[in-house]
């Protein structure tokens, strides 16, 4: 690397820090003091409750212990408690049992796994592009779960994702191989909470986003090169490895409004520009610079003299970035509260205002003050009274706008599969070959794209008639159906066990009586027990986290 470009690089990064860093450092110091005086959970409750007053909303009271138990298990671990765990928790008289449970689950080995599942889905979606590369994401998930296992600060793992220099992390870029525009859309949506894809084809009709803003961001990705490092395994299990290189030259060519495009018209090169920010200052290349030809099959390339992705990583994850911390807090909030304070979570903008703007600012400031500590943020959210509200009542909204009642969110495909195994009494059960694929297909995308749940016919045909689902229910040595059939306890107690195992609650008297009559309607109980467990697993109460 040439000495003068090194110098430039240092100078530039200093400038960046100077320009946007000073103010926020002072802010951080102040907020840290404030953070210690009022726990965030109380700030949340105060803000939410004030908005109820203002909107004259009658809110639900605190949820009961079994609702809380199921909810917190699903939200933190993506599963439900076993019968024994549920029984123990519900019998526990300790006033601090909820806080203790939260702490235990946050430190459970499944917690980072569940976060990994959620973020993997956010970053790749159900049908990622470049299927050959993205079908098997084992390495990416390993990389990500290490981050969550260490509770690495949110800004740091995102920085590493942008740099894409650690094994596994490259796959996020690899899915958008040679499609820097698609990568721009994904990145801006997820980490900047901004939908700039409209500006890909035309200037945004009702915000200030211009096409040049979109292509300005694309400039940070346009020089990336996905280098295939070979594969191991075959078929569905094939695992491909990649490295990400970056060229010294190459620009986005901008050719104006898509509708007015004429064939043969060449675009003009666009300089990289931070979203709603400054143009990237970068050293110009020598006039006679010629990019070495990149041959397919190349496995390494030298670092560029000036790395645009490093600049993007610095800018994007800086506390002073106007989008990043806010978008991240909002997204993490929505994991637990069902909807963002800005909703949908990836659509910040003048036309989509936050419901609780002060709270969102507050959360953002404190997240920064706590050095992007994800676990801390999650702990505060789930410890709030707001999170622990009841889920019943007459309100028809599944995702109440003012958080006046717990949200009703469908379990993900992954959750349903895990939960059925736990509920059926055999958490380690291996599923039939295509079961996972069926679950993803029938439970994978249950909303209309606006977040509203829509039950589908195919989901229920699968639940009603498939051997894949039946496998988790019917009697097998050691599972729930087996235990119920073998038990000599009175039916009432066996029914309690069924309810606690599947729904994490005791039955109401009316339910217990109905089940008792049902289960004794024939001399042999085996069929009846299977049918009864199927009923519990098919309830809407089971389908949702409530």
């Amino acid at each position, binding site marked *: 690397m040439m000495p003068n470009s090194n110098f430039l690089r240092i100078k530039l990064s200093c400038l960046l820090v100077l320009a946007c860093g000073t103010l926020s450092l002072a802010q951080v110091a102040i907020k840290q003091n404030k953070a210690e005086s009022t726990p965030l959970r109380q700030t949340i409750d105060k803000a939410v409750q004030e908005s109820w007053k203002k909107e004259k909303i009658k809110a639900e009271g605190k949820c009961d212990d079994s609702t809380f138990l199921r909810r917190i298990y699903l939200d933190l671990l993506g599963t439900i408690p076993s019968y024994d765990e549920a029984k123990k928790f519900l019998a526990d008289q300790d006033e601090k049992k909820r806080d203790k449970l939260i702490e235990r689950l946050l430190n459970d080995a499944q917690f980072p796994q569940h976060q990994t599942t959620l973020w993997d889905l956010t970053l790749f979606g159900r049908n990622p592009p470049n299927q050959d590369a993205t079908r098997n994401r084992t390495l990416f998930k390993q990389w990500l779960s290490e981050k969550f296992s260490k509770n690495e600060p949110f800004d740091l793992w995102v920085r590493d994702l942008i740099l894409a220099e650690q094994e596994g992390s490259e796959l996020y870029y690899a899915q958008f191989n040679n499609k820097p525009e698609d990568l721009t859309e994904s990145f801006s949506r997820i980490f900047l909470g901004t939908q700039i894809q409209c500006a890909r084809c035309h200037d945004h009709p009702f915000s200030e986003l211009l096409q040049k803003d979109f292509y300005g961001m694309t400039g940070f990705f346009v020089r990336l090169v996905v280098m295939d490092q070979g594969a191991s395994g075959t078929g569905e299990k094939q695992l491909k490895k990649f490295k990400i290189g970056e060229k010294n030259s190459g620009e986005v060519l901008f050719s104006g409004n898509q509708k007015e495009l004429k064939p043969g018209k060449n675009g003009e090169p666009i300089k990289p520009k931070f979203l709603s920010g400054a143009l990237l200052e970068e050293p110009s290349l020598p006039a006679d610079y010629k990019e070495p030809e990149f041959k397919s099959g190349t496995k390494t390339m030298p670092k560029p003299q000036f790395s645009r992705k490093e600049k993007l990583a610095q800018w994007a994850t800086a506390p002073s970035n106007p989008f990043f911390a806010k978008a991240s807090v909002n997204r993490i909030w929505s994991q637990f509260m069902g909807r963002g304070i800005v909703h949908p979570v990836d659509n910040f903008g003048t036309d989509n205002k936050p419901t609780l703007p002060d709270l969102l600012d507050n959360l953002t400031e404190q997240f920064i003050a706590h050095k992007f500590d994800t676990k801390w943020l999650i702990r505060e959210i789930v410890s709030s009274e707001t999170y622990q509200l009841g889920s019943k009542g007459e309100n028809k*909204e599944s995702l109440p706008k003012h958080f006046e009642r717990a949200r009703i969110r469908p379990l993900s495909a992954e959750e349903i599969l895990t939960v059925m195994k736990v509920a059926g009494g055999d958490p380690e059960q291996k599923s039939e070959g295509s079961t996972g694929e069926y679950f993803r297909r029938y439970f994978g995308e249950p909303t209309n794209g606006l977040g509203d*749940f829509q*039950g*589908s*016919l*195919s989901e229920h*045909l699968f639940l009603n008639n498939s051997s894949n689902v039946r496998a988790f229910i019917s009697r097998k040595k050691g599972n729930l159906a087996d235990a119920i059939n073998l038990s000599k306890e009175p039916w009432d107690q066996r029914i309690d066990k069924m309810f606690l195992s599947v729904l994490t609650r005791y039955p109401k008297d009316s339910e217990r009586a*109905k089940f008792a009559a049902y289960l004794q309607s024939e001399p042999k109980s085996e069929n009846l027990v299977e049918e009864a467990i199927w009923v519990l697993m098919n309830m809407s109460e089971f389908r949702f986290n409530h």
Partner: protein
Amino acid sequence: MNDQSNSSECKKSEHFSRRTLLKGSLATGAGAAIPNWGGLFHSQSIASMAQKLGKRCILLWMNGGASQIDTFDMKPGKATAGPFREVQTKLPGYKVCEYLPKIAQQVDKLGIIRSMRTASPDHPDGIYHMHTCYKQSERMPHPELGAMIAKYLGQTDADLPSFVRMGPTGNAGSGYLGPRYEPFGIERNGNMPYFTSPYLPAANESRRNDLLRFMEAEHKKENSADAYESHRVAKERAWRLLKAKSLFDTTKEWPKHQELYGASDFGRGCFLARKLTEAGVHFVEIGQDNYDSHADNFVCHKANMQILDPAWSGLLIDLERTGQLQNTLVVWMGEVGRTPQINNRAGRDHFIRGWTIVLAGGGIKGGVVYGSTDADGRDVATNPVSEGDLFATIYTALGVNPRTKHFVGTRPIWATPEGSKPIKDLLL
């Protein structure tokens, strides 16, 4: 356009694989709550019931793209004409291909658009575009025509899905309308998709379902969220669909209708479509393989038309006979037309500069030939029609406002693109 890649792509759609079957069975829908399937069929009450239920649509999907010059836009005497001769239709002065003799007798029912000028020249993008009237490259989850019809004409409390399809068909699904309007995929002989055969004896299934109903009723007393209701409704729909399953079975009636529709899978699908729309399914799509004749265009088209001619004309005759025609729009189209020039393998390639789509029945003026191509068929000469115009015509004929607005996130999107205009000359 690369012939080789096309022909390899095209082959995939030729068989009804397990995978397409599964994809197609992502399903939902509506129809009408009709209690007695057995007694309904062919009864006198059908016509009046149909009026009460409103309009339906049957889409005959010519997978791969049928040739306009070898069907409805013949160019006799021109270099592009090909070997087929013309046959006189019921409409004075208008002739069609000799292999569509039965359809020639139904032209008084048809609105023929000979001036389609479209924008997506290949299969996946053309199939997407001609099912949604939007470009695939916009990367928006646009819903298919069938999903829109399911949403706007379907009934929520119906026993049957509102959107049924068979054979090679669309590739967009219900898009932003959501899983409620997903197509329900079956085979053209009426065979049902996976997971439609209960594993329990009927009596056990029935008591089990009643126990679930009891539990849901208990739950509903204290829980009102929409999401729960959507789950409960979908469960009931799945049960009702299986009760109505016999409707999909054409084993008994098919021998009696085989002569009218022609003894083919596609013909049987057309018959089933008529039966289903009559019973309250609002949109049925049937695909016919495979018009993608990059080689041996004339062999391919002759064979296909011999299946198409009786099936399509039989469908129109049967719809008329049962009083359904004025309520049932029948659309005949594929994703592209075929080139006027004949290539060195006696094939025709994909063509989007001027091709033909035919509408008939519900809301459409029959005996109208709209638009034209130039002497050799190399471009539209008069009245070009876009995908959006076609869809605006279809929506208008079915009573759906073509400028119906939806939101995806905060982005507004309309049933048809800005500037789309229904073809007034074709609408009743």
